[in-house]
């Protein structure tokens, strides 16, 4: 048990910066696109955004995981996300639309997001 925890710790040490880096990349792109021309941002700002988003995502992942576990599944499915978003119906409907498109494309009926955020 100890052994495993240790290794998972190490793993986490490596994993988190990687994840954060990718998040950075995505966010920076998005920020660049969204900002009107001539407006600059500091790396600190992106850093803060990364921290925020990361925390939020971890939280989200934890919740989704818990929901899935509660339903007796190991895989997170759409219903979990919808449950998560039960308080923002607009987002729900938006996601549903997107999902339908995607499902139409891939032909799969059930969906689950991979547990990218399953570790904290």
């Amino acid at each position, binding site marked *: 048990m100890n052994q495993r925890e240790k290794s998972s710790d190490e793993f986490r040490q490596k994993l988190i910066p990687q994840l954060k880096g990718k998040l950075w990349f995505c966010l920076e792109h998005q920020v660049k696109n969204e900002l009107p021309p001539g407006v600059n941002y500091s790396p600190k700002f992106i850093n803060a955004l990364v921290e925020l988003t990361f925390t939020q995502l971890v939280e989200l992942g934890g919740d989704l995981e818990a929901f899935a576990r509660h339903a007796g599944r190991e895989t997170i499915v759409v219903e979990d996300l919808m449950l998560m978003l039960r308080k923002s119906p607009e987002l729900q409907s938006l996601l549903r639309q997107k999902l339908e498109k995607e499902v139409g494309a891939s032909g799969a*009926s059930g969906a689950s997001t991979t547990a990218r955020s399953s570790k904290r």
Partner: protein
Amino acid sequence: MSPGVSDSSSDDELESFLENNVNRNVERIITRKSLPQQRDLFGKALPNQTPYYEEVQTNITYGPTHHELNMDSLGTYIYPTNYEVREYQFDIAKTALYENVICAIPTGTGKTFIASTVMYNYYRWTKNAKIIFTAPTRPLVAQQIKACLGVTGIPHNDTAILLDKSRKNRVEIWASKRVFFATPQVVENDLKRGVLNPKDVVCLVIDEAHRARGSYSYVEITKFMDRFNTSYRLLALTATPAADLDGVQEVVENLNISRIELRTEDDADVSRYMKRRDKEEIEVGLLPEIEDLIEQIGLAVTPVLKEAVELGIYDDCHPSQINAFVALQKSQKLVANPSIPEGIKWRNFFILQLLSHVGHMLKRLKIYGVQSFYKYFENKHKEFTTKYGLGKSTNKTAASFFYNPILKNVMKTCEHLLADQNFLGHDKLRHVREELKDFIQEYQPSSRVIIFTELRESALEIVKNIDSMQMSDLRPHIFIGQARGKEGFDDEEYKRKNKPKGRKKADRLQRLKEEKAREEEKKKEKDQKRLQRMSSRTGTSEEAQITGMNQRQQKDVLHKFKTGLYNVLVCTSIGEEGLDIGEVDLIICYDATGSPIKNIQRMGRTGRKRDGKIVLLLSGSESKKFAQAMEDYAELQRIVGRNCLEFRESDRIIPSNINPICEKKFISIGEEEDELNNIEDSDDVIKFATQSMMGKLDIQKNKKTRKTKAAKAAEKRFFMPDNVQTGIVPARSMVNKFAYDPSGKKLKLEKLDPPVDLKHQVLDDIVLESPISSPIKPESEVSSQLDSVEMSSILARHKVAAGKTATADTEDTPLFSDLPLSALKRPASSTTPANSSDEAIPPCKHAKIHGHPWNSLEYNEASIPLTAKSQESVGFGDVYKSTFRAQDGLLSTQERQYFEDHYSALCGVCIEPVPDFRHNVKTGLLPHSAKSERLITAFKNMDDNTREGIMTMSKHKAIANRLESSGLDHDPVQLSLPSPVVNNADIRHITSGAHNKSSYEGFEAPLFTSNRAEISDFIDSDFSDI
């Protein structure tokens, strides 16, 4: 918050300091109720809001009086029946005995009688307390002396009269007498000089109390007295409390009045005793000549007025309606306004000034007649034309007015009119003549007339006019104040002064010579004029009009008026108050004033001993003004009667269990006192009273005082409230003092702070306000008593000990082990007052924790019961030990003893400038949600800008850069990620085995492992492969 509290408490202290020593107890209950506050997004209250409102409830109670009372006579009070008993007098006198009363009853209804009854009873009730009557004028004082000595028979050798500061041995007089008649200025002066002890006064009567406003002596006297003595009766007499409700309230506040006894002429019980006063208002039209003049002046001033209206500095109106007062006000406002450029300002000012002059001219024309108008007009005209002619004035607007050809015509008409003997300056004069004619026929020769006017010139004109009636039964005289009359503008003098001066010596000498000659000439001229005046019958009046009348002259005239040498008195406002001449049967008000007090006082001069008649001559807008003033006053009386004033509780002085019974009795008066009743003239009364007062004093003490006077020139005394510490008190002695009793317990000697529950109080405050100010109670003694060396050593040991516990102790869960290490742990669960400060706590911080008021409160509670159990000591000898277990605190018994001796919950010291409130606030005990906590730490780390933080940041950035540089120039959002969607078939369900474990950890682990490969792939991918 807390500094504010302590501030106000020290103020209260100061106040109570003063008030404890008089017998008035003021109990003030303040209920503070919170108000909703506007808050910003961060939950901070916006500034400048009061978070509460206060309901103040004041209870005033009085202790027993300090005056020595005459218990024998307390059972009764005496009401003299020397005069007819009037119900209202009886009622008022009765209430005035027990309460501070304003007695507002019409003129001539016997206020003085009420006053003397009250004074007499206080004279009887007390053994040696002093009774003071104050009135602003001599005649009023004389009147009261007569009433007091003549009616109630207060023995004359117990009374004193102090009318001016000239009397030398006032110290003795104040000490030896009991009843005083004085002017307020004398009383004020002697109180402040320390000659009169305010504690001795038991009864203070104030006549003409409507003057008790602002900083008049009356106000100063009561203010001064209140600091030392609240056990005195105050009786305020007036006919007219004030012109408006605010004024009445001010008087009530200044004099500590608890009741107003108000009677009007319409009240049944008063009117029964009132002499009849017929009031006749005569509307006087303007003479055609005057109207003509007004029109002409209006024509002349029209261009100026038009200019003023165009400039927006004066409201448009008919030129004949120009109001001097309005113009004056506007010009004053203009001058006071700093935002107007100087040039415009002064041009406008001169226009308004001119309008104001014109307004005056019109007013004089309308109300007083041609003569006073012409005098004023001529003066102004001469002044301006001379100045303008000399080039000293370049005021073109004024020039356009004064050089207007119409004005020449005006002057001509005026001169023509005035030259005409038969022309009366105003129609009012005709009415005056008629009234006087009727009067002579109707009344007996002892009768008198008073005519009131506001202007001296007009008074003189009236006198001359009456004189010109050539009736021997009418003997008029003027009666005015002592100020010198204004001299008209002397154009010759002005021209001469402004003549170019020669520089040579000869020139100067010649000028001096000329001046001398001129002065002599002037003197001669004056003398001649005076002689001329003397030869005419109204000479003294004319003379007086120019020079004013000094007190002696005034007295002289009044005397002659009383004896009948004059029977018509033409007064300015000086005659309005307090002239008590019983035989005045006719009052003629030549003009009306806007002040109800003045009007009432004027009318109050008649109807005193027999019925009288009042004639009001009103012209122009005067009738409106008069009606308005009287209407306002009647309204005021109604309001005051409706009891909407805020009164003050007053001391009853007489013990509340004693209710004196009224004893109506005719007081037989001693011979000497009776003599007073026969003296009519006020000065004689004063003279007589003074003599009788000084009589014994002079004989007995004259020699003595004369010798000793030089030796002890009445040293100045300072009166202090009772129980006051005198001398110099060091501040050190004013803070809390402690002593140790044998058992080592600390005792506070004095000035114990109120035993408030500091903890809760402070908590409440913090919840209400933002925790900016610290609730530090200055507590010097405790900390200073701690030997600094001792303290630091103890603290150092604390640290070491604490550190050791943390590392060494493993088996027993150490109670304090997490104290220095738990940097970020909240004390929510632990009962110990763990603090949040990091490892490097400086010693003083420790001190703060232990000494902190509420912390130590908790600490004491928590730690004391744990003490005695384990006694093992390893490292530090007997006193200190190195290992601690759950049961014992950080301290050995000795240490704890020491601690308990030196710290108390109430007097802790906070050395840290900004105490950490979070641990002591209710909200501080609630932990954040895990997410917020994480965010907070994340941002805190970012804020800290540590090297590590920067490094991780750049690491992330580097990864991002790598991703970018790996040839991805398209938007990552657009990237089609490998679809994370899994097929339904792939949905894994939790295996029963995993389910059984049901522990989080057990669950996560397999999930984790199973996914690991996947995840590592994901990590290694850099989107490039997508």
